[in-house]
């Protein structure tokens, strides 16, 4: 045991570096969670009192990025409430860097990157009328599909919809 501590002390620089890398990795991982559709479904369709507002977007989608300020002001309005704002990115997994830039730029919370190649398998499970065009926003209440808007949305409309 003593030897171990001596060894540790000798390599203190290395240890600090390792801890630093670990912390850094953790914080970037907290920003974006890469999930399969079924895992995402479990996150948003749970039967708690929380209302989920789920925005489908991508870093390459111009209208999606243009409407981000609307979601940010909505986020301020729902602070300390049982409403949770979730962002689901359909960015290409290979191009995560671009997504990360957007996440950092708008300080987005609760961001999921959907790790699916064939959208035909999951789009209908969000809403049967959805063609797959983004942006789109889903509202889930008590674990059930409540509303779906396949278009850009304003913070005012968002506040109305969750009432």
């Amino acid at each position, binding site marked *: 045991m003593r030897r171990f501590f001596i060894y540790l002390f000798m390599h203190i620089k290395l240890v600090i570096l390792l801890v630093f890398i670990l912390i850094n990795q953790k914080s970037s991982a907290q920003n974006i969670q890469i999930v399969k559709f079924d895992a995402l479904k479990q996150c948003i369709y749970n039967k708690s009192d929380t209302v989920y507002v789920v925005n489908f977007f991508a870093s390459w989608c111009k209208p999606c990025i243009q409407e981000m300020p609307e979601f940010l002001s909505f986020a301020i309005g729902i602070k300390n409430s049982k409403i949770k704002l979730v962002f689901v990115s*359909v960015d290409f997994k290979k191009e995560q860097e671009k997504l990360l830039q957007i996440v950092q730029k708008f300080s987005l919370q609760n961001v999921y990157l959907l790790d699916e*190649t*064939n959208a035909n398998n999951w789009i209908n499970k969000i809403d049967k009328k959805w063609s*797959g065009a983004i942006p789109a926003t889903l509202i889930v209440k008590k674990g059930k599909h409540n509303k779906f808007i396949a278009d850009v949305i304003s913070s005012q409309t968002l506040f109305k919809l969750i009432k």
Partner: protein
Amino acid sequence: MKTIKSLSIIWIVLSVICTNAFAQKNNKDIVDFKLKNVDGNFVSLSDYPYAKGFIIVFTCNHCPFAKLYPPRLNDLNNKFKPLGVPLIAISSTDTMMYEEDTYPNMVTKANEEHFNFPYLFDEMQEVAKNFKAQKTPHAYVIWKENNQWVVKYNGAIDDNGMEPEKVTESFVSNAVNELLTSQRVKTSETKSIGCQIAFRRK
């Protein structure tokens, strides 16, 4: 004898109801159009009197999902045009929103990617509205029935945009093959992620 008669009447009524139900579900008539191609000429469906059907793809320059498909569109046209099913690409994006999608940029794109099919500019967005196209890329297979164009398939081109080598289902290709062999289109609608075609408000 009477029972046979009444049975046959019921049979006829039932079959009429069934065909109508089918007609309502899938068959949406398409109005012919006349749009400017990247070569400067105007293109209509009626310019192809030999065509049994068409692959119509709503696409554009700017959309990252649409950008994945040009080689595959060339392949589809190479494969099916000789069989009487040419491919036509149409760009209906609002050019006020996307500079990249203006007509001169469409010309450049078609040259750069060696498009072997017409790339038409739907400036008024009327054709996209007629098809109810909602995003790029959004593919349709239309077929000539009683001198009318009927939608037989709409949706994704195939099931893997990013990795063409990992495609397991070529939806458009399958639909055309089924139609060419007088079969029912098994998968008549699919979904995929794409860039919204934002319709200008009048």
